[in-house]
């Protein structure tokens, strides 16, 4: 069992989380995508667009991503990853 968190350890955890948050990059595997566009629906900064012809999502503006994780959580195919 881990030690119970102290004031400073939980503060440090915040710094660590913030650091990880900053270093996260988005990875998209178009092969796995089935084009239900849930990612496009939930992204609050418009990173995704829809390729209507191929019926898959396109990661159009990866540089705008704020690593909120919404698309990762909602994609049913696990085609998107933040790491």
């Amino acid at each position, binding site marked *: 069992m*881990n030690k*119970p968190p102290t004031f400073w350890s939980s*503060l440090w955890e915040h710094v660590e989380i913030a650091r990880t948050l900053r270093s996260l990059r988005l990875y998209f595997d178009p092969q796995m995508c089935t084009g239900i566009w849930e990612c496009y629906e*939930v*992204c*609050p900064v418009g990173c995704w667009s829809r390729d209507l012809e191929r019926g898959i999502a396109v990661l159009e503006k990866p540089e705008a991503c704020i690593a909120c*994780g919404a698309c990762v959580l*909602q994609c049913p195919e696990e085609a998107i990853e933040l790491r």
Partner: protein
Amino acid sequence: MATVFMKWLETTPRDYERGIRLLTLGRLEKLHVLLTEDFIKPGMRVLEIGCGTGALARRMAGKGANVTAVDVSPDMLAEAQRQLDARDLAGSVSFEHMDATLIGERLPVAAFDRIVASLVFSELSPDEQRHVLQNCRWLLAPDGRLLIVDEVPPAGFLQRILFWLVRAPITLLTWILTRTTTRAVRSLEVLLRESRFRPCRLGSRLGGSLVLVEGSPLPEAAPAFDLEQAAIPRLRHRISLRSLLVDLWALFLRVIPPYPKVRPGLYAVGHPDTTSPVFVSGNFDLSVRRLVRELDGKVDAWLLVADSKGINVWCAAGGGYFTADSVIAAVGSSRIESIVQHRHLILPQLCANGVDADRIRGEIGWQTAWGPVRAEDIPSYLAGGKKTDAMRWLRFPLVDRLEMVSATLGLYAIMILIPLLIFWRPLFWPVAISLFGLSYFYGVMLPWLPGRDGLVKSIPLALIALAGLFAYVTLVNPLPPLRLFHWTIGLTGLSVFVAAELQGMSPFMRGEQANWGWELLIGIALGLIYWLVPMAVGWR
């Protein structure tokens, strides 16, 4: 930096234990002993709802019961498990992470001889209380009993006054020491009777304000439901003294708990009927009132307020306080399923980072859609039946930026200016004016300052501030070199602080905690320059 303060405000499991002991003057334990000695027998299957750090669960396990103990807080459960292992009782209690409102869906029916809840019902909203009691009926085996220990308001008028006289100072002291507080459940016995339990008071302490009540299930009455009788509270857009005060608090001090909350549950906006849309929201008071302001008079809808711990949905979902479970619990504990004919929820889009819509669809069979980001778009969203890109994307317009600067500044003003006022008064006004000036300037200029990160943006901010200082010195009022030097150091430091810390206010660049290391380094460097340069140059 704000995080440091908020961490202090957060209750740790240890604080909670101490706090409760202090608040109940140790009498809670007496009731726990009574409960365990007289009503728990070896081999009984016991469910404890809201076990906290597990003191009662351990006591009952010590008596030989098979205890299943659930709690919403992973921290509390970790502490409970630790203490259990330390006492060699491992294996006799199984701790499970679960919201009280979800017990009916996650635990086996008719599987418990006793269901125990200590200081839990006071934490639940009336809808949730009814829902949990209903579930307890299902979970109890034949001849099973419900045992509730909770705070209630004392019965007589005099007792009540006496109670508050003693209670108020203890409450304050306890909060300061441990940030823990409790509430009383109004009319616990009535609540039990309404949910078809026969209540029986088995013991009481603290002048009748802390009670142990047994509930034995009565045969279920035929459910009667009627929209007119249901008396769903209606939310309206009203400006009152209270709403203005809460707005003022929210403008400057919203980051400090207790966050103003709305009681979770089902509400009506306008005059909804069985086909009206159902919106889900968190229970941050400000968000709910803004939502109602945009909807009232324009649309008829049901508003299902889920428990987001009083935090706005985005932060709550990101921090794990608002999840699919919160929404599932809100649907289950409200009467929405018997009110509307459709099964369609409109979720706030900004909770998509924490609320797994797939789980909601899978577990309770409701369809979900993501509503517009901004409440003001909801009427046209409903009218057009479609969401445009503009409704889907975050904006951070000037009004919002100024609001967020104020919200962040409130806490800093307390943390920085009050110590200055006490210990270093001559610095108070210069720092106050520079801090507020720089912060609001930063808020206005944010989109045009280069860089995507607070620390980078601090460079142009500091340059502009220094340019202003030098313009003032050359054009208006020349300062002696040493004062000019001090102002330069001060403004540079504040610019870095403001830009780096206010990063957290923008929805586009969060994680200001990662800047702390750099802020500290820059602070030390500026401090060294402050001491060494005048010595080297010989200013005095």
